[in-house]
């Protein structure tokens, strides 16, 4: 639930305004379908002219419809706990129409320790503690994972488009879009055998000194393998805005949430004092990105 509230708020709150408008409009359309009316509603009908049934915007440039979009992008995590992931990637998208499109993106990212890690690590002991659950500097950092590769395949809806004026001089087209789909990520952690040397976390171990005998579990999660490497598949949500610089170039600003099972710290989460798969949980990984979209073909058509 860490980033869920934030991401849902960003996506949901932006949608809220549109929903209000759309709801009002739907009510108006229902009123249109009603039978003979009297009173104020009838008077309202009389006031309507032919424009009521006309398109909201005429001679509009179809800046996305039937066009292929290629976007080199930069992306960074927002408010990550232990490591920021900052990377570059590419988004490829085909707009089936003016509102609907399908696409995929992939991002290669490097990892940077967050301020939290930088505060914790100097306070940890240099060497592993035998009779303490306090991790050493090496144990703590070796359990953190990275996300060298992540991406998504999605369907995108573009319900809003418009035009804005900046400083009364620059007039540009823009649109808002919302995306949903499947996310994937390649996670990586590099805990050396000298640190992660517990071969059976939480399990009795064979006693090397007495054949046939077992030792009780050590219940020390700091020497357990972090189990936070490998591929992950989950859900994807995104929302963004195209700001068109001309007919074929657009600034692409996006908030993306890649949600999948993860245990970023690689440590014991459920307090059973050893690390296993149960310590992973479904987490939101919130990113903000900026890209430059190239629309192909480069010439945009207009509506009538």
């Amino acid at each position: 639930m860490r980033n869920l509230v934030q991401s849902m708020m960003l996506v949901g709150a932006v949608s809220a305004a549109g929903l209000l408008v759309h709801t009002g409009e739907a009510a108006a359309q229902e009123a249109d379908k009603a039978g003979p009316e009297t009173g104020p509603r009838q008077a309202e009908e009389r006031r309507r002219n032919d424009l009521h049934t006309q398109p909201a915007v005429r001679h509009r440039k179809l800046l996305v419809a039937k066009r292929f979009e290629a976007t080199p992008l930069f992306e960074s995590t927002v408010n990550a706990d232990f490591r920021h992931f900052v990377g570059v990637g590419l988004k490829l998208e085909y707009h089936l129409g003016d509102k609907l499109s399908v696409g995929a993106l992939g991002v290669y990212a490097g990892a940077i320790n967050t301020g939290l890690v930088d505060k914790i690590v100097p306070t940890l002991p240099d060497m592993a503690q035998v009779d303490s659950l306090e991790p050493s500097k090496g144990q703590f950092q070796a359990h953190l994972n990275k996300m060298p590769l992540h991406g998504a395949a999605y369907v995108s809806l573009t319900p809003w488009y418009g035009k804005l004026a900046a400083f009364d001089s620059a007039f540009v087209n823009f649109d808002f879009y919302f995306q949903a789909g499947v996310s994937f990520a390649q996670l990586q952690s590099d805990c050396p055998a000298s640190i992660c040397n517990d071969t059976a976390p939480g399990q009795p171990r064979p006693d090397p000194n007495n054949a046939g005998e077992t030792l009780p579990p050590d219940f020390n999660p700091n020497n357990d393998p972090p189990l936070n490497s490998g591929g992950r598949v989950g859900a994807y949500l995104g929302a963004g805005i195209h700001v068109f610089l001309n007919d074929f170039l657009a600034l692409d600003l996006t908030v993306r949430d890649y949600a999948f099972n993860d245990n970023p710290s690689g440590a014991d989460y459920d307090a059973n004092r050893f690390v296993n798969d149960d310590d992973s949980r479904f987490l939101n990984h919130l990113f903000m990105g900026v890209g430059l979209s190239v629309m192909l073909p480069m010439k945009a058509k207009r509506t009538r």
Partner: protein
Amino acid sequence: MRPNVRTTLVIASLACLCGSASLALAQKGGAKAAPAKGAEDEIELEDTATPDKPAGEGDGEIELEEDKPVEGNLELDQQGNDLGGPTMKAGPVTRTPISWKDILVVIRKPFLKVRRVELSPFFATTMNDNMVRHNTLGLQANYYLTDVLAVGVEGQLYTHQFREPFDLVGRQARRLPTVNEYNWSGALNFHYVPVYGKFAVLDKHLLTWEVFFTAGIGAAQSSVIPRDRTYPGFDNFLIQPNVGVSMRFFLSKFLTVTMGFRDYVFIDKFEPTDRSAAMNATADQAKSNADSAFINNVMFQLGVSIWLPMSFEYTTFR
């Protein structure tokens, strides 16, 4: 003949092609333009003349190329029109689509803010603190000096909740995080609106919006949350500038929805690392040895605004 007069004549002639133009003008009591038979309803033009001001003396928003000088007199043409005389040549109308590219259609803003007060209750939540999340309820009151510039005040009351890493750090790293909670804040703000626009929702309904920047200065109070509850915390008074960017969506003449981001920056004092019965035991001692840090508290804000007066009238010419 001045260019503006010629411009008005050309526009008035084009308006004759549009039957709907006369209807719109008749409803508004403006000067009437005779509709041409067979004209389609696709294009509407508004007469630039006003009852108090002759056509052609407007603010010059619409300009056409002077590739074909138009000879004539506006007053004579209007008189001829009143007498039922021909205002157009007989025969087929020649369309000049190229000229449309030169016409800048500037509609009036659907919402005016100048000399109005915006009362905006809002909700905000922390965006960049993975230890403690602060949620606030606040109120803004802004007065718009012009349509793009406003001055206002805001106040917020804070509540907090610890996030997952606060607990994880304690259990996994065996460290107790040092965190402060915020109690209240207030600020004097200035807002500038450089961007406005409109968009269509699902190709049906037009909605206007704008983007504005905020900068302000204010004060706040934070409190240390002691790692060991046996020792007292202490309060900090903070000088707190802020900057932000927000979007405003216009729902009606008096109702808007605002959302945006605000960065409150300040230097906060935190509980010292070493605290025992012999060291920093009292609040004053702890405060005097507190660790200072520069803080960016980025918050997402969502609010609804009521505008007073609840309606407005245009005082400028179209």
